[in-house]
């Protein structure tokens, strides 16, 4: 049985007041809060095990290396990747996409080739491809969305072709909450010989992901959106692809032998982890995966779906509120505007009521352009949110409307 009060008790940060009101944290798509177990794991590392990894012969270095590598194993298991060699630690989803665009992209995408992304991508899954296309003379194509905030799947076949080298798609949209039909997209992309990168920055806290069942080529995420620390994330890629890819950055750890004539690169996954990594972050990431498994992704997402349905019902009844993103398959995100009150003002007013939401373009300006809004307000839910907090959100929205009446 999912007990939200028990879950809340594990998050020390939630138990505070802001401006004299209980904190209602509904900005989880920007970053989630961290459970005590994650905080403890990072702290334990610094208090007991701090040392560099993969190089020391002493006890601390061995312990640090063991915890760092154990985190990789936990992530492999979470994603059901074939091998731990396929899990590369990065700074986050953004760096992982840049890694693929630079290393795989520069070797596999050339003049006249095409990269296909969707209209609902986060800027981090647009700009690296744009930069690559500019450098090599390739073309960036866009799969549009409809007014419900779903991909126009009927246009996919005509946008895929023999020049398509890569398809980059967000698994769960941060701006709209849409869950995309990624399995179908992967099948169709593979049929024309294109590789597929899934942006899972939002997905892993809410959805089961099995990279083998999906057969995706690249999967990226950031730990901080799934109860882990900031500054750490990962790239999953099929081993055969990683084997053939040149290193992304050069330095220590990614080599086995260096002379001025020639350098021998290290094996996977280390070939792509140049320099001292974010060791504490990776260990915290591993603890976050443990926490998710212990709490149960199914139970947590059932709870979040209930909150989303409850909030959506209230939103529909709220005078002047327009929901942005009404996909049939949706999770955790309620994006909206309110007539006569700019999202930025909503953000400020709600903040003073203790309610933290995001107001802005959510790093998805093309989505804003599609819906002809400068910005939206976004409430996004995590495992520790409650129906009472949804009520607090709508009470604060009523107050905002009154202030502007």
């Amino acid at each position, binding site marked *: 049985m999912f007990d939200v009060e028990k879950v809340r008790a594990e998050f020390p940060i939630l138990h505070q007041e802001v*401006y*004299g009101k209980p904190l209602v944290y509904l900005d989880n798509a920007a970053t989630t809060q961290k459970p005590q177990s994650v905080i403890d794991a990072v702290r334990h590392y610094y208090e007991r095990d701090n040392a560099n990894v993969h190089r020391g012969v002493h006890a601390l270095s061995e312990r640090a290396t063991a915890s760092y590598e154990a985190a990789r194993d936990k992530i492999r298991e979470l994603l059901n990747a074939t091998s731990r060699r396929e899990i590369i630690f990065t700074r986050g989803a953004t760096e992982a996409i840049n890694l693929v665009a630079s290393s795989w992209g520069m070797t596999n995408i050339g003049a006249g080739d095409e990269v296909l992304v969707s209209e609902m991508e986060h800027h981090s899954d647009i700009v690296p491809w744009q930069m690559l296309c500019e450098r090599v003379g390739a073309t960036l194509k866009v799969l549009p969305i409809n007014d419900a905030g779903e991909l126009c799947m009927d246009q996919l076949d005509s946008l895929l072709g023999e020049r398509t080298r890569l398809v980059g798609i967000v698994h769960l949209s941060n701006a709209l909450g849409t869950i995309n039909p990624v399995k179908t997209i992967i099948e169709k992309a593979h049929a024309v010989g294109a590789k597929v990168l899934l942006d899972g920055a939002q997905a892993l806290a809410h959805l089961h992901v099995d990279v083998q069942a999906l057969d995706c080529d690249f999967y990226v995420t950031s730990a901080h959106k799934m109860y882990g620390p900031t500054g750490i994330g990962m790239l999953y890629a099929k081993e055969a692809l990683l084997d053939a890819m040149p290193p992304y950055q050069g330095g220590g750890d990614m080599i086995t032998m260096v002379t001025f004539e020639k350098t021998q690169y290290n094996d996977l996954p280390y070939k792509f982890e140049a320099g001292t990594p974010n060791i504490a972050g990776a260990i915290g990431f591993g603890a976050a995966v443990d926490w998710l498994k212990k709490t149960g992704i199914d139970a947590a997402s059932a709870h979040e779906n209930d909150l989303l349905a409850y909030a959506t019902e209230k939103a529909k009844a709220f005078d002047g509120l327009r929901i942005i993103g009404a996909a049939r398959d949706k999770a955790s995100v309620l994006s909206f505007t309110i007539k*006569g*009150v*700019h*999202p*930025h*003002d909503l953000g*400020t*007013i709600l903040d*003073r009521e203790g309610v933290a939401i995001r*107001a*802005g*373009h959510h790093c998805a300006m093309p989505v*804003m352009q599609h819906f002809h809004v*400068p*910005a939206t307000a976004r409430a996004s839910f995590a495992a520790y949110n409650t129906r009472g907090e949804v009520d607090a959100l709508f009470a604060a929205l009523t107050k905002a409307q009154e*202030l*502007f009446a």
Partner: protein
Amino acid sequence: MFDLRDLYQQVIVDHNKSPRNFGKLADFNHEADGYNPLCGDKLHVYLKVNDAGVIEDVSFEGEGCAISVASASLMTDALKGKTMQESEDMFGHFQHMATSELDEAPDEEVLGKLTVLAGVREFPSRIKCATLCWHTLLAAVKDRPEPAKTE
């Protein structure tokens, strides 16, 4: 306890609902864009300045939050009849008010109605909303081609 009404005073709410001097001037000789990438606020300021350097007319267009729209509306009201130099000085005073300590009373004599925006001092993330129009004005005075930012 701080009240949201200190920021969203009725004057601000009113100017947001029906901004003054909104739209493109039929006859202008200076203009500039202003953009706040953080919240997506976009402004365009038009100026008609005569040979003596006096602002004969001023207007703005764009979209933004209540603070940025009201601030632009109040600014355009305040600028008519001022010289270019006076409006630059006013910007200095406004900027000072928006970032000053809370216990410092705003200079009513120089700023007049604009003092209703003093509440932004309590909201560090909103100061830029209030000053965007002034940066845009300065860009128009100086005929800068690139959009003004609040940095």
